[in-house]
């Protein structure tokens, strides 16, 4: 079964090609089914591969499938080849799995859109890219997928490109990501120079023999790439805007899969990170923690249903980097998986709400929706409990893992993580209350909104609900893959061990877990007091609503001094450089015009010129060259 790993990306590719050729003819909804089928098939193959791997001995669980020589030049020899090992297959599993669910969901969500088939075209292309990313045997193939998902993200964010904001958001996402890509590329260059190869096997093997500074450089430049893709400080700004895309996109790309690519990359090169100077992991951990806290504070004050989730995603990704920085790769992957479950669930749930609310996204215009969309509400609540870290939901276990690791690294980081956990519980509770409880505020909405005719929020069709239910189930039991009770129950850690190294000891940290659970409950309680029982005024300062003005500052800089600098270059080009060129032309003509006045037409002047020439020549010959 391992030899057919290539089928995993090939199936979405086939879907892409088929839809490209026949998409219009297939139309709505057949194109969607085709895409889903392809993604589902990929999932099936992945499962097969997974079990195949599982059946092997631990040390044989790494398998390289070489397709063809891609970029062979001199000592650089890059193959297009896939690496099937526990890490990549794990990623594949939830990428294809969740991907299939979201494909399915999107058939319902995108129904009636004039560009229905194109949406699935992009979606399949995304699945292809994402699979290349995780399956890549070397950094270049990963980079191929890396940029591919970036491109798809661009295409999908600006899917409704008639909206100016969507177009801008797509561009912003791409360009910001490119900053990270630059880091990734430089990291590759360092790796190539130090090891002569780009394959992970080679690089990781050489990690301990290369200079520490090189390892640090590779790690940090990779981390820069990860920051871009995984929306960490300071490059997170594109993700909130990316919510302009259709909600399935947000769920798939901007919650479950693509944004976790950075974490995946860091885990992939974990030996290099291990070989790097100690400040490198610390930096990663600090950035992760800071991002987690920072995004959580912003999420507290958002009113757009998807923006809350977006900031939440950033915050959760911060957790994962905190884990990476603390050396707890398994914890990072664990959280990535559980996060994929519940965040995809939450996004799809919000999508169902938006769908049912006729594309209304402002939570202040919602409320009491649990009555009209019960299934959505129920699944959303499951997601909420999971993300808030309420045991025994999935989020609790993975988050707890991370906090434990952070505590190991530094109590300060742990404290930050804990505060973030509190805030997470708080803002998620706030969201649930605002959307599903309280008064129904959508009736007043429709006057101002000028909505078309009667406005009745409604439950979504079954095709959208099935994924919700499945994901809710996963969000409940997802934690089961890595329970910290004994080393037997830490299945994921064992599974990943050949890739990310030995797992951390977790004994004697029950107290910390209890603290985390209590903190989550405190957050929930506080939110209930404020938003459900109105016992206190909501704390939604403007500075948080505006995301600490970070985005605004960046934008003001880009539109202001940045743009002026660019304009200055253009001005310089047109005026100074081109001016110099034209100036030479003008100079020649000007000089000629001046000399021209000497050509008076008067024969005596001409004779005088000859006379002067004579005297000069005589002077040269007689005085200079003569026997003076």
């Amino acid at each position, binding site marked *: 079964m391992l030899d057919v790993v290539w089928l995993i990306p090939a199936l979405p590719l086939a879907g892409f090609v088929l839809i490209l050729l026949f998409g219009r003819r297939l139309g709505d909804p057949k194109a969607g089914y085709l895409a889903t089928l392809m993604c589902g098939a990929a999932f099936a193959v992945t499962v097969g591969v997974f079990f195949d791997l599982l059946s092997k001995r631990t040390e044989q669980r790494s398998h390289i499938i070489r397709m063809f020589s891609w970029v062979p030049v*001199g000592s650089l020899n890059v193959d297009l080849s896939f690496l099937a090992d526990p890490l990549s297959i794990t990623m594949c599993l939830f990428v294809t799995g969740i991907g299939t669910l979201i494909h399915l969901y999107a058939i319902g969500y995108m129904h009636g859109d004039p560009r229905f088939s194109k949406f699935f075209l992009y979606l399949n292309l995304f699945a292809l890219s994402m699979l290349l990313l995780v399956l890549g045997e070397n950094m270049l193939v990963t980079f191929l997928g890396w940029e591919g998902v970036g491109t798809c993200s661009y295409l999908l964010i600006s899917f409704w490109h008639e909206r100016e904001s969507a177009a801008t958001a797509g561009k912003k996402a791409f360009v910001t990501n490119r900053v990270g890509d630059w880091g990734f590329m430089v990291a590759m260059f360092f790796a190539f120079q130090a090891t002569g190869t780009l394959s992970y096997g080679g690089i990781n093997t050489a990690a301990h023999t290369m200079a520490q500074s090189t390892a640090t450089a590779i790690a940090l430049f990779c981390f820069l790439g990860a920051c871009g893709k995984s929306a960490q400080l300071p490059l997170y700004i594109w993700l909130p805007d990316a919510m302009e895309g259709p909600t399935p996109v947000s769920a798939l790309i901007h919650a479950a899969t693509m944004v976790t690519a950075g974490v995946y990359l860091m885990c992939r090169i974990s030996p290099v990170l291990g070989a790097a100077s100690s400040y490198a992991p610390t930096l990663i951990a600090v950035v992760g923690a800071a991002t987690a806290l920072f995004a959580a504070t912003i999420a507290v004050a958002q009113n757009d249903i998807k923006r809350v989730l977006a900031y939440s995603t950033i915050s959760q990704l911060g957790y994962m980097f905190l884990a990476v920085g603390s050396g707890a790769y398994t914890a990072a992957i664990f959280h990535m998986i559980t996060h994929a479950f519940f965040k995809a669930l939450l996004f799809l749930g919000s999508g169902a709400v938006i769908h049912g609310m006729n594309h209304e996204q402002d939570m202040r215009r919602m409320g009491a929706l649990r009555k009209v969309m019960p299934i959505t509400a129920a699944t959303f609540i499951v997601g909420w409990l999971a993300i808030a870290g309420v045991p025994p939901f999935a989020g609790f276990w993975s988050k707890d893992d991370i906090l434990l690791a952070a505590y190991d690294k530094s109590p300060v980081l742990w404290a930050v993580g804990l505060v973030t956990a509190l805030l997470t519980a708080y803002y998620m509770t706030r969201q649930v209350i605002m959307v599903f409880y309280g008064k129904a505020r959508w009736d007043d909405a429709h006057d101002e909104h000028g909505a078309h005719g009667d406005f009745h929020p409604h439950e979504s069709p079954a095709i959208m609900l099935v994924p919700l239910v499945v994901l809710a189930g996963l969000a409940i039991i997802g934690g089961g893959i890595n329970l910290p009770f004994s080393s037997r129950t830490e299945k994921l850690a064992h599974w990943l061990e050949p890739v990310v190294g030995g797992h951390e000891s977790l004994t004697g940290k029950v107290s910390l877990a209890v603290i985390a659970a209590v903190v989550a409950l405190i957050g929930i309680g506080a939110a209930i007091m404020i938003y459900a029982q109105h016992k206190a005024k909501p704390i939604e300062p403007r500075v948080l609503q505006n995301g600490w003005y970070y985005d605004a500052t960046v934008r003001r800089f880009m539109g202001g001094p940045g743009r002026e600098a660019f304009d200055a270059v253009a001005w310089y080009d047109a005026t100074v450089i081109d001016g110099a060129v034209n100036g030479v032309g003008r100079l020649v003509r000007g000089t000629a015009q001046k000399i021209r006045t000497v050509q008076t037409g008067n024969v005596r002047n001409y004779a005088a010129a000859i006379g002067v020439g004579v005297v000069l020549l005589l002077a040269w010959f007689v005085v200079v060259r003569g026997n003076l």
Partner: protein
Amino acid sequence: MTSFPILTLLVLVPAAGALAVAAFSTRRPEWTKLLALLSSVFTGALSVWLVVAFDKSNADFQFVSKHLWIKPWGISWHLGVDGISLFLLLLTGVLFPIVIAGTDPHQNHRRYLAWMLLLEAGLMGSFVSLDLFLFFVFFEIVLVPMYFLIAGWGYEGRVYAATKFFLFTMTGSAFMLVGVIATAFLAKGRGPLTFDLIELAKADFATSTGRWLFFAFAVAFAVKVPIFPLHTWLPDAHTQAPTGGSVILAGVMLKLGTYGLLRFGVFLFPEAARWSRSLWLTLAVIGIIYGAIAATMQKDLKRLVAYSSVAHLGFIVLGIFAMTSQSMTGGVMQNINHGVSTGALFLLVGMIYDRRHTRQIADLKGLQKVAPIFAGVFMVVMLSSIGVPGLNGFIGEYLVLIGSFLTARWWTVVAATGVILAALYLLWAYQRVFHGEPDDANRTFPELKLREAAVLLPLVGVIVFTGVYPKPMLDRIEPSVKRLIEHVTEKTNYVEPQPVAVAP
């Protein structure tokens, strides 16, 4: 190999076509066009055949033909092709039929087509010449058809642009001509005078002499590339040229500069090229960043693409002077990639102009809604230009960067930021042109026509194929690049740095 003079034919067929077209009666313009198309297609077929017949295990010049031309000066009609020039020939052979089939001059087809074919002959000749004199002849002669194409069929500022182009390039060539002659005489010693590239490459010049000579050559090529700050002719020429002219100018003609730097600069004067590399690397990096920034602020779509060429060509120069097999192979490859994608971009912009009679970005809006297929093709080409992996633009750029990193680390790190800026200016332009709700003027924008699609399809095909499977190209380019580096090694104490090999 073969005594069939295919390279001579590559030059003579379009030249004969030009004469035939010029002599053809004007009464039936469609026949004229057919004749022109046939001769360019035939040339293209020859170039394809050349690539097929090319022996990729042979790093030396192939299909060599050598005939004495001007005996008293020791000048021969000496043609040959190696991996460095092979794909440039193919590019020329392919782009011309596309341009001839795909673009229509607004007046006097016959003359336009004749000039086009003459241009093709000149370009082909430049790429196959192995004699300095012969190369110079072709290098210079291409100016004439290009001048007339721009001045005769261009837009409002065409005469200014064409004149600027002509004089600018000629100034560069002025230095090169002196350099060519001086090279031949200084290398002459006791032997007979010769302008043969291969003979001259054996000569050893005194250090300072070699540097001066290199400078003389390099100025000409730097103008052609163009390297900052000698680039200002380019935006004007590209913008004012008719679509076909822009395609050829950007697609093929700029490559004369980079090709010349490799073939004549580095090959003849390795020491000087090594000695001055910091200068070139710096200028290349400046070009990459500067071109991108200038492109960002352009209001004219064609001008934007033109400035993007400055940036892209900067990568090639970086690759050439970083002098590793990866970077040089990447540079050679980028020649082709840039030719294909920028050529396609110019075609697309030309199609926009044909429909809307404006190139101003501000006049265009929301085209994706009314012409999704057009927008889709534009998107693919644009992504290739941005350097998205999986498309051709990436391979060349990446190879340049990774190779350059070995010898010019910090230049490369800065140059790599060019990929960010490339995304910025192209996507911004795309957004302004294709995104949004189309206004009244753009609501009736016609979708891609069949003929246009037929013209673009091969280019898009090349873009995707090369991006996914560049090996056939790399296999043919690399041996010649390696040989060039070996030549440099022989002449100087340069040793190509290799990455630290990983223990098996």
